[in-house]
């Protein structure tokens, strides 16, 4: 394999994981912007999507019904979590919300482990296993599905948020929750909807990547965290999240290829920590001292 084809291969895998992180990042920001809850169960929804589809496939359903059932179940679980664990909290603070979602994540993880064990699982690729050759590098049809998912999610969400009344109301409540509720927007219904949306998107992402990366009870936490990194670095906006996620994916692809495959998960987390520290530094005042 020449260096050129290696670079193309790493770019492809980077963009693939970048697309995944972009969609997951959107899941985090949808919930965070409306409810101010940093939902640590997002990664577990990704895992649940893949595992539930596998479960329904084993139970004898076809691929399409299994996918639909899995997405529906995840949406339901996400909404139940919001209704029974997050809404009844008496003294809501960032710390309480975070502890509850971390606890929720470990409950989901534990249940999946109890039900299906710790083996990795996979489902078959959607459109067969043909590959496209591109100057020494290969693209599977499943990778194209991942790109397609990102495009569909982006276009669909931006149409929904900008063109429909419900979407506009959602954006309004992200800007100012009190103001939106004074205008007659039902905030508690919106919170439920946001959790459902995040669960559904997460589950679809999990299903689409399962044929490529496999799934198991423990994949959720790290995958979800990388989406969070993209959302934080992208400033919780959709465009920013996508750009950050793609850069992150490329960094990871090349890091895994040229430095170490075992340490590839560390890169994204390091990026997050460095970004958060740099963000707190006040460059403006330092520059202002020198300039007139």
């Amino acid at each position: 394999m020449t260096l050129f084809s290696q670079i193309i291969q790493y770019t492809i895998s980077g963009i693939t994981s970048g697309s995944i992180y972009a969609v997951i990042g959107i899941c985090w920001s949808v919930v965070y912007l409306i409810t101010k809850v940093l939902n640590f169960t997002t990664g577990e929804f990704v895992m649940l999507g893949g595992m539930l589809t596998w479960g329904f496939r084993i139970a004898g359903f076809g691929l399409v019904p299994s996918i639909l059932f899995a997405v529906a179940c995840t949406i339901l679980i996400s909404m139940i979590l919001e209704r029974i664990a997050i809404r009844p909290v008496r003294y809501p603070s960032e710390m309480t919300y975070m502890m509850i979602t971390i606890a929720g994540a470990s409950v989901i993880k534990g249940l999946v482990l109890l039900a299906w064990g710790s083996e990795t699982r996979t489902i078959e690729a959607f459109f067969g296993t043909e590959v496209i050759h591109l100057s020494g590098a290969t693209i599977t049809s499943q990778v194209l599905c991942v790109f397609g998912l990102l495009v569909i999610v982006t276009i669909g969400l931006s149409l929904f948020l900008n063109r429909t009344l419900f979407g506009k109301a959602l954006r309004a409540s992200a800007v100012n929750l009190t103001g939106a509720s004074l205008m007659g927007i039902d905030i508690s219904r919106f919170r439920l909807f946001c959790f459902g949306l995040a669960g559904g998107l997460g589950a679809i992402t999990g299903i689409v990547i399962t044929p490529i990366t496999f799934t198991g009870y423990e994949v959720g936490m790290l995958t979800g965290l990388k989406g969070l990194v993209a959302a934080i670095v992208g400033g919780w906006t959709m465009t920013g999240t996508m750009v950050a996620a793609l850069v992150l994916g490329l960094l990871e692809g090349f890091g895994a290829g040229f430095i170490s495959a075992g340490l590839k998960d560390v890169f994204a987390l390091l990026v997050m920590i460095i970004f958060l520290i740099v963000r707190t530094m006040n460059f403006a005042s330092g520059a202002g001292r020198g300039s007139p």
Partner: protein
Amino acid sequence: MNSAPKQKLIWLVLIAVIIAIPLVAGSYVVGVMCFIAIFGGLAVSMGLLLEQAGMFSLAHPTWFGLGGYVSGILAIRGIAPPWLGSIIGVVFVGLISYAIGAPLLRLRGYYLACATFGLLLIVEISLAQLGSLTGGHEGLIGVPPLSIGGFVLETDVHYYYLSWALCLACLWFLYNLMGSRMGRAIKSFSDSEVAAKSMGINVPGYKLKVFILTAVMASLTGSVYTFYLRFTQPGIFGFPLLVQLMTMVIIGGGKTIYGPLLGGFVVIWLKELIHMYLGEVLPRMSAQVDALFFGVLIIVILIFMPGGLSGWMDRLLYLGRRTLGKTSG
């Protein structure tokens, strides 16, 4: 007026009970109580950081693990005897937590939590990957037992007394700390940073001090744990330990200093009971599944009993005193 003698009495009773337990109970109880001392002590320092100082750092298990790793590696390679290795581990963790805490503690709320959570995972993954030094996923195997002079600590009872001495020393130290000028400063900035700053309290300085102090305590506990188990591995101090410690802090109630220790008592015995009775019913029962029960406990307690056990007990005492006062007066 009589609070100081009363506190002394409580301490004496506690110490007497702890000394008496190995004389009465069997080795199983002693082993479990040893775990309670180690994890309860760890939870006490984490509770101070989380609830009293209001710094939501999730990297606490990391310091526990790093302390154990440093002293374990030094002891296996024969570079330093275990007791010296523990001290070197403390110094190492203190320096690292200073280097990391100084830039990181400028963050607060969600962002501090995210960054420290990232740190927790980075250290866990790196230790698993650095195979030649740390033994990779299998971890350090064959750590020698703790020995001071010619005296070797081998049995559960030895480690029982050592870990309870450490745990009670931490507890006593933190009680004195929180009653001092520094403790009042810590409480003040957890309520409102702006108000504390305007009173002339050096908030970043105190934050860093508390962070390093709790990290050092966790490191010492981690060393004792490593020498007790005679091995350590990256999986010990990852996400499951974080959830377990959070459960202890929440069940016990972090607004009091003894709360997390009480939580540790409840959680560890609960874990033993679950393993004893559910082990036959659920075939895939393992340490990972414990997190499932802890998760449910965290959610239930945060919703129905936000103050935890100690908050509930304080409330009960207050109500009792009030009703008694009414009947007598």
